[in-house]
């Protein structure tokens, strides 16, 4: 299974409030 990464933290936080799930922020320098 692949993680469906998002790149908009504010949209994710809005969804977190709605879904009751925390946000995982991954800061990376690895090739994407």
């Amino acid at each position, binding site marked *: *299974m*692949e*993680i*469906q*990464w*998002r*790149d*908009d*933290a504010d949209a*994710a*936080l809005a*969804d*977190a*409030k709605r*879904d*009751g*799930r*925390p*946000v*995982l*922020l*991954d*800061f*990376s*320098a*690895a090739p*994407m």
Partner: protein
Amino acid sequence: MYPDPKIARFVSDHFIPVRQHVKTHPEAMERWGAQWTPTIMIVDANGKERHRVEGFVEIDALLAQLQLGLAQASFASQQWDEAERLFEDVARSGDADAAPEAAYWAGVARYKRSGDPTALGETHKRLNADFPGTAWAKKTQVWGGGP
């Protein structure tokens, strides 16, 4: 780290995952106070950071850290039963770094849920029996009732 199926499953099941690359989102590093990569933060629905993992972590240790972050988010939202259950899972995981911290917080969650201060004394005994000499065991000395 993330190609590991255990990690990918846990992240997908429990979090809303956001990846910010240092080159394409330097402003995000500044906004969240990330000073190095890799850095992982668990942020609750109110935008407050609840857990941070900096630097490379082995797969099983990372899973324990993510579980710890999830438990901290439950604790912050005062879901004491859920927080205690999640902390207990980590406390029993055998992870040398996360388990003592989780055992400490499991005791605090138990106290918060019950209001019974004996939960803290029991946590002191547990930490000293199962994780002696750790920083988290030392934090419980004040709950031991002794000198």
